């Protein structure tokens, strides 16, 4: 087996997970973690230069390239943030060095699982990869071993497992639908084969399968009635994991759902998956927007904001068509970058203030100007104000769907505006006004946060043509 981009994005995290599990000393292992994440990112970029051949188990196409590069990039910047975050956690004694070794190994296992889910050409393999990713994040959410953290991990575990179980039932049904056409055995679970034959599958079976897949993977995306695990898991785990959960793992589950949507779209007799996704998306967006008002915990608040944005993204993909898909992809990218930047800021803020309660922090722009203004910029971006990237992508979502479904878009815009109000209400308490809480100097790594925000700002002003063409190709693929 030669080392190309495809094997690289899988082998590097897998090998470094083993290495990191064996190495003591958090300074060394956090650097190694960073190095491994960087190499994985480099490998994923090489996918654009040399495209490896796809086999029955692994696959690289235009769609998953976008996801892989985004995943490995955010994983890399998060590992930079994680290094300084973890150092501080050890200094204040919140994490024991033994747990840190475990944490770094798990970080790489998670990278491996997410990359595997993205490159899997087999619906069974993809399911197994998402299960591994769920398990590792459960372990990491509970790493502080406090009552709250275990509670959150348990809730995530049970709900995530039910979601995963329903997704497996859907996967089995897809196999059942494919079997009479493709024949027994491995071929009936391979994407590239399924896609060519999808038109001949039994539509009724596919419909039922999609409902299960939407419920199952929808739980992992955090869609509204199934989102209960998400805020707890974000609030109680280490902040780098909150960033990875919001920025990446939700996307991976979304990717799985999109693949199955493509399958259904190819079968003219099957039900249109769009309306189901549109409903789930709108519900999540509006529900999460209202929930934002009652939040007292800063990480919980941004977790609800993630639910809102996943709702917008699922709405855009549900509407479908090249333009809406383009907008959905752009919004997903922008949300990943912005939300992880916000969590980088929030992680350091919670560390300097020693709390996650919004009421106990205040006047951040005075006490910690760089962190404070970084957070302000991040919230301005996530709320969707111009000239940042999320404004651009939300504008595209709205404008590309308005002519087709004006009333639905009104609901969406209403949700976005409600969320904007809530975010600024809280931002006002945190960033401005009387300084509250401790004002210990921050030992933060600002580079990852401002890199992300700079990209988001740039994307809001000018999108480079190669990127636009790439996204357009993917949008066409999604149908």
């Amino acid at each position, binding site marked *: 087996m030669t080392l190309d981009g495809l094997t690289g994005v899988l082998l590097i995290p897998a090998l470094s997970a083993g290495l990191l599990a064996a190495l003591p000393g958090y300074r060394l292992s956090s650097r190694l973690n960073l190095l491994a994440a960087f190499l994985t990112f480099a490998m994923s970029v090489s996918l654009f230069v040399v495209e490896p051949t796809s086999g029955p188990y692994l696959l690289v196409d235009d769609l998953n390239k976008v996801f892989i590069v985004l995943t490995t990039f955010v994983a890399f910047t998060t590992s930079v943030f994680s290094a300084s975050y973890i150092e501080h956690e050890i200094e204040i004694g919140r994490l024991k060095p033994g747990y840190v070794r475990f944490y770094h190994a798990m970080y790489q296992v998670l990278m491996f699982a997410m990359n595997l889910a993205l490159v899997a050409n*087999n619906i*069974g*393999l993809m*399911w*197994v990869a998402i*299960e591994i990713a769920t*398990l590792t994040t*459960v372990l990491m959410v*509970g790493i502080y071993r406090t*009552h*709250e953290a*275990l*509670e959150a*991990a*348990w*809730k995530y*575990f*049970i709900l995530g*497992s*039910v979601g995963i*179980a*329903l997704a*497996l*039932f859907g996967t*089995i*049904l897809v*196999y*059942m639908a494919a*079997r*009479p056409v493709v024949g*027994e*055995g*491995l071929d*009936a*679970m391979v994407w590239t084969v399924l896609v060519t034959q999808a038109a001949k599958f*039994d539509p*009724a*079976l596919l*419909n*039922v399968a999609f409902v299960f897949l939407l419920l199952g993977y929808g739980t992992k995306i955090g869609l509204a009635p199934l989102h209960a695990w998400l805020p*707890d898991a974000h*609030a109680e785990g280490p902040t780098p994991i909150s960033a990875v959960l919001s920025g990446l793992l939700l996307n991976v589950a979304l990717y799985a759902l999109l693949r199955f949507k493509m399958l259904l779209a190819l079968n003219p007799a099957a039900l249109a998956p769009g309306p189901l996704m549109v409903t789930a998306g709108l519900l999540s967006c509006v529900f999460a927007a209202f929930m934002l008002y*009652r*939040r*007292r*915990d800063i990480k*919980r608040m941004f977790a609800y904001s993630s639910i809102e944005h996943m709702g917008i993204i699922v709405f855009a993909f549900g509407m479908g068509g090249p333009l809406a898909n383009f907008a959905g992809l752009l919004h997903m990218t922008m949300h990943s970058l912005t939300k992880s930047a916000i969590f980088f800021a929030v992680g350091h803020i919670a560390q300097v203030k020693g709390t*996650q*309660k919004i*009421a106990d922090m205040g006047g951040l722009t005075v006490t910690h100007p760089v962190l404070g203004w970084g957070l302000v910029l991040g919230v301005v971006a996530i709320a969707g104000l111009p000239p940042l990237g999320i404004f651009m992508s939300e504008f595209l979502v709205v404008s590309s769907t308005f002519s087709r479904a004006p009333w639905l878009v009104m609901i969406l815009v209403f949700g976005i505006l409600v969320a904007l109000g809530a975010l600024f209400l809280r931002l006002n308490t945190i960033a401005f006004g009387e300084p509250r809480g401790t004002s210990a100097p921050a030992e933060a790594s600002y580079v990852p946060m401002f890199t992300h925000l700079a990209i988001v700002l740039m994307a809001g002003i000018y999108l480079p043509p190669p990127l636009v063409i790439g996204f357009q190709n993917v949008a066409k693929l999604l149908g």
Partner: protein
Amino acid sequence: MQGLTFDIAHMLAGSLVVVSFLQLYQDRLSALINIFALHALVLALSVAWQAFAQEAPHLYITAVIALIFKAIVIPVALRRIIVRLGIHREIEAVVGVGPAMLLGIGLVALSMVVMLRVTADADPLAREDLAFALSVVLLGLLMMVTRRNAVSQVVGFMSLENGLVLAATGAKGMPLVVEISVAFSVLIAFIVIGIFLFRIRERFDTVDMQELDRLRGERR
């Protein structure tokens, strides 16, 4: 012969649904665990019969995993855990027998209506299996939502998972079945270890609203 093969598969899958019903109204944890062991045993028999009927020897591995891991190891471990946690004598408030049965019957009817209608062209064995499997999955879900004790929620999850294994083995020639059942066993082992290590008794140890608010981080 074909008729007999089908009848036995049908009977075993049907028994799994019946045992799922038995689980619904068990209010003592130790009784619940016994019934779960029976559930896993019926699953193992059913999978073994499918392996024989489909002439798919790799399915015997799944059957053996179900027998050893789920019918013996897990029940023994769970029984020890509930003794250690001191909840083996506890009587859990469950939904009454009547409503639970009615809800369960409703779910089974639902899965029959859905699955038998959409699989009209599939071969009868797979079709019945899938309908029964969906019933077991839904009954497992019902159990998870009606229980508050962590151990009985896990039992609910495991019986749900048994339904999935039944579905996967019923789908003739499906690859990765063994791998998936191993993946699930790992998942379950994690859950059981989790209960033991962190002494999780209920989703919320207390019904004190202020305590709940603290957990949700909503108190100032």
